[in-house]
């Protein structure tokens, strides 16, 4: 697959138009000013204002809203549920994708092409569509249950409105990204290394553990960070498929702001989620920076 989206690779470095540097710098800044301005007004400023607002209680600095957050059992249950959902779903998605990527790496032909296509299908399906589709597929008397009953299995219990519902949706949504990332990584593991190990008598699990996994570590970490961030921030999937309680953080925020009309608490919830996400995001960016530095 040609990797088109790669600006940082610098395909044509140092190509400049034949004007003086001063006017070029001005033109460049003028051209980027509007989108940068949009980012500043609608991402940077609201975030900074929100963080400041959460520490301002009746005109003076105080962390009492955060004490309230971390001392509230229901809030903490929601936070724990969110993080566990992110962790479990991301690990499951990575494991399944790794299996698919391994199969694709060592096979060819029509079946492999079809599996590759299927694994990328979720890219073309927005969250709200798959959430609704899963309600109809896995829900009570859904097509999945009907299929099971055709083969004589009548004990089906729907995952809809249990934590398994959003888990399955997150798993479904997060197959393509790691399949792409891991396939790219696996294609760099040479056949010779695998064959040499096999000739020396290594069994498949050992080849996996000692040759493939070490080389895939960075790809796995990057994919994990991206999936985890996506899941802990998700709204549509848990809103449509999840149980009424515990709530994932975005659903909780929506209810706090929209139904309870408590923007102060909603903002604290948002800041906590942002901090967790930015820790994982910082780790992702550091890993990316390291790998692109290594590639040069």
């Amino acid at each position, binding site marked *: 697959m040609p990797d088109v989206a790669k*600006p940082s690779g610098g395909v*044509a470095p140092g190509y400049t138009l034949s004007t003086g540097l001063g006017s070029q710098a001005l033109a460049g800044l003028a051209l*980027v000013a509007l989108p940068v301005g949009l980012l500043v007004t609608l991402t940077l400023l609201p975030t900074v204002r929100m963080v400041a607002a959460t520490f301002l209680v009746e005109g003076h600095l105080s962390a009492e809203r955060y004490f309230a957050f971390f001392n509230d059992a229901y809030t903490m249950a929601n936070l724990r549920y969110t993080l566990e959902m992110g962790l479990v779903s991301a690990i499951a998605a990575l494991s399944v994708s790794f299996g698919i990527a391994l199969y694709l790496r060592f096979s060819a032909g029509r079946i492999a092409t079809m599996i590759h296509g299927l694994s990328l299908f979720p890219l073309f399906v927005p969250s709200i569509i798959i959430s609704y589709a899963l309600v109809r597929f896995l829900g009570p008397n859904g097509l999945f249950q009907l299929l099971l009953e055709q083969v004589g299995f009548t004990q089906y219990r729907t995952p809809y409105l249990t934590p398994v519902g959003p888990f399955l949706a997150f798993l479904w949504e997060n*197959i393509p*990204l790691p399949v792409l990332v891991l396939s790219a990584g696996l294609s760099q593991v040479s056949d010779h290394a695998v064959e040499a190990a096999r000739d020396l008598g290594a069994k498949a699990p050992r080849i996996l553990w000692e040759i493939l996994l070490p080389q895939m570590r960075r790809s796995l970490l990057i994919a994990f960070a991206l999936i985890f961030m996506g899941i802990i921030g998700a709204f549509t999937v848990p809103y*449509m498929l999840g149980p009424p309680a515990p709530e994932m953080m975005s659903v909780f925020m929506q209810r706090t*702001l929209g139904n309870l009309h408590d923007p102060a608490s909603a903002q604290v919830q948002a800041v906590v*989620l942002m901090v967790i996400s930015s820790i994982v995001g910082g780790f992702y960016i550091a890993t990316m920076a390291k790998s692109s530095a290594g590639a040069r």
Partner: protein
Amino acid sequence: MKRTYFGGLILLVSMGLAMLGPIITVILWAFAVKWRYPHLLPTEWGMKYWFAMLGRETVITPILTSLALTSIATTTAALICWPAAYAFARLKFPGRQLLLFSFIAAQAVPKFALFVSIAVIFLKLGLVGNFWGVVVVQMLSAVLFMIWIPTAAFRGIPPALEEAAFDLGASRLRVFLFITLPQAMPALAASYVLAFVSILFEVDSALLIGAPTVTTMPLLLMSLSAQVIVQEAAVLCVLIWVPCFVLLLLSRRFMTARGIAQGFGA
């Protein structure tokens, strides 16, 4: 050899069921007039619910609202982002790398949490429930596609052609219009499609900034999905998603691992 073949076949069948099963269910429902438990398939087929849905103003209005919102937000984002992408790719200016990087870093901010911060400000300004308030916020979802993919495309165009045209005396505008732009066009179109579809189906900002006065198509879908008549939401899904699916398929070349990692990741 035979073992891997059967292994592959089992993997294919189970993946086919898991990946396509949910969508097939929705398509069946959209064309089912009667589908009662325990029948595996609908017992009566037809377009009855399509006509019923398309004749209702409460359905048409949100669809038109969404199309207007999405077109305005995506086109405006394109107008401000594509020139910026050209600048990121071809011009030298102070802070270029840092600013380009800031568009990626912004993706690490959880969207829903960010929209909460914006909603609180909009509440004070009276912009919640305002059409243009939603447009501005939805532009954010377009920015990454519209900066990242076009920047890569402009960088990927070999400068030799442009230089040759310059040497032959072509003006910069002429070179841009006749050499650079045609080569970047597929990537620009793809970035437009990706941004358009992601905004069209966006729930988060529509719910926090638009509701209750601005009802978009995804919000309608959410309210329909909770109703007793299953077909209504199914019809809406098929009606809106299938054209988008075709458009996305045409742009799939640009959905690379790296592009997705940065675009869809957070």
